[in-house]
């Protein structure tokens, strides 16, 4: 439907609950804005620990987004373009972190990659110490963000359907060529929106990170952890840093919308 060509009237009674819903989402952000100490804003967000946390957050979130794309694209392809026994089960398991409390995810990661975890010994032999490192932060973020990319991309793949790919294959294109020249370009907006969602989810990750990676300044203390800590000692700094997170989120969503991805 093109803009301005609505043909069916909206039931008038929908407007009131819609307005309440929108207010409920917007009002807390507005309330936070009223509490920001504008005079000292830059002072509050430029303390050593704050800058370190922001940098760490951006770095780890970018890394986890890259990992989400590297593993999520193949996973979405397998879920959308093949059928096999247990596929439904696999899909449910992949989506589990979406509904799992992140703290539980953190505990699960700890018992897998921690020193005494399932693979911990193997890693130790290899001289890799995962838990309570920056690597652990990235892993925690990837764990909670990967399903966002898979869901978003699988939806795009199903919407695009397999017909273009079928035509491409009868034109002589091998599966890899079809994937590269037809599938990926067709679902690119879905991929971007999935990546943006993953980045945003990584940026806000708290529960799994603090459980699996701890809170070491400059190493594992990301911005949400920093905000949580500051709230106990310096509420003004916490509010200012929260605003920074809001701004980063708005920029990310604006960028994605500008590209028509979400």
């Amino acid at each position: 439907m093109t803009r301005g060509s609505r043909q069916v009237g909206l039931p008038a009674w929908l407007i009131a609950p819609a307005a309440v819903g929108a207010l409920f989402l917007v009002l807390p952000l507005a309330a936070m804005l009223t509490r920001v100490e504008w005079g000292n804003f830059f002072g509050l967000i430029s303390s050593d620990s704050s800058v370190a946390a922001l940098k760490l957050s951006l770095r780890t979130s970018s890394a986890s987004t890259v990992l989400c794309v590297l593993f999520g694209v193949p996973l979405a392809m397998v879920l959308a373009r093949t059928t096999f026994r247990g596929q439904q089960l696999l899909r449910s398991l992949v989506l589990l972190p979406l509904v799992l409390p992140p703290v539980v995810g953190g505990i699960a990661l700890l018992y897998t990659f921690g020193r005494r975890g399932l693979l911990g010994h193997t890693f130790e032999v290899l001289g890799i110490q995962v838990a309570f490192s920056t690597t652990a932060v990235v892993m925690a973020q990837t764990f909670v963000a990967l399903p966002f990319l898979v869901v978003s991309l699988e939806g795009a793949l199903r919407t695009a359907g397999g017909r273009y790919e079928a035509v491409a294959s009868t034109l002589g294109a091998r599966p890899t060529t079809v994937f590269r020249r037809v599938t990926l370009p067709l679902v690119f907006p879905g991929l971007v929106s999935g990546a943006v969602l993953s980045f945003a989810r990584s940026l806000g990750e708290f529960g799994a990170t603090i459980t699996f990676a701890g809170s070491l300044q400059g190493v594992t203390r990301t911005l949400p952890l920093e905000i949580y800590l500051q709230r106990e000692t310096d509420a003004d700094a916490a509010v200012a840093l929260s605003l920074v997170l809001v701004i980063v989120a708005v920029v990310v969503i604006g960028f994605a919308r500008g590209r028509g991805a979400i």
Partner: protein
Amino acid sequence: MTFELTGMVRERGFDLSLHVGSGEVLAVLGPNGSGKSTAMSLIAGLLRPDSGTASLDGRVLFDLGRPGRSHIWVPPHARGVALLAQEPLLFPHLSALDNVAFGPRSVGQPRGTSRTLAQRWLVEVDAEQYAERKPAQLSGGQAQRIAVARALAADPRLLLLDEPMAALDVAVAPAVRQMLRRVLHGRSAVIVTHDVLDALLLADRVVVVDGGHVVEEGPTAQLLARPRSAFAARIAGLNMVRGRREGHGVRGYDGLFVEGLAEEPVGEGEAALAVFRPSAVGVFREPPGGSLRNVIAVTITELEPQGDQVRVRTAELSADVTVAAVAELDLAPQTPVVFGVKASEVAIYRA
């Protein structure tokens, strides 16, 4: 023989054989759900049959489900079979030219060579002026022309056309059909269609498929003039009474008797068909006197304008009359009328 297929797909009740000679265009006709598209998918390699074999130019495409033989399955991209569907399905992110160049590029030809080749095919389908456009900027007819060019640029040994005109505007279909007639000349192709014109103008031979089986097969002109299946008669626009030879005519299985001229000797009681054109049928409000041998009382079910004529349909038969006659006789659905046909207009032959 260029192409041969035998395939069985159990869950669709599909079990048929086809062959296409070198440089021959085969039309596959049949009602919806008859298995035409299944046949196309099998040939293109997009569907795997439970058993069967196919070969193209002496090369095996698949050989499945035969005891004591190892399975062979050539993937779609290695078959040399290009598929043109009802929808053009041009890749939306590529220009028309790059769409056409897709096939050559995919088999490793350099970009420049592929584009030159694509340019040539665009000229061939009268679409060179659209080369730089994206598919969203093309009309249905233009897009389908480019889809034809794209399929041909892949240099297929066998071209599959799955109702290529079905999604087109009636106004542009004739021009696309003419173009197809030109580019299909001398090529091996299979065209699935609903339209008798496609079969007549594009195909050398026709098979009629129904219920997953071939029910009729023959040279196009012959099959359309002398259909042996109800479907072929309907698409050829002919009336057909199927029954047994009785006296000078055919007694239909439904009891209707039609007198006619036998085109070949048909013995009394033998299964026979009586076929006549709707244009040979006169429509009357009252039974006419005179020499008409066939006078059949019917009830109109539908009036369908066809140019300056109107096709008067009843449950079994149809008649073509002028618009003036419809007005004069005050014809409408549910009207009881009488169809009259001269015996000399009715061709009788063996079923």
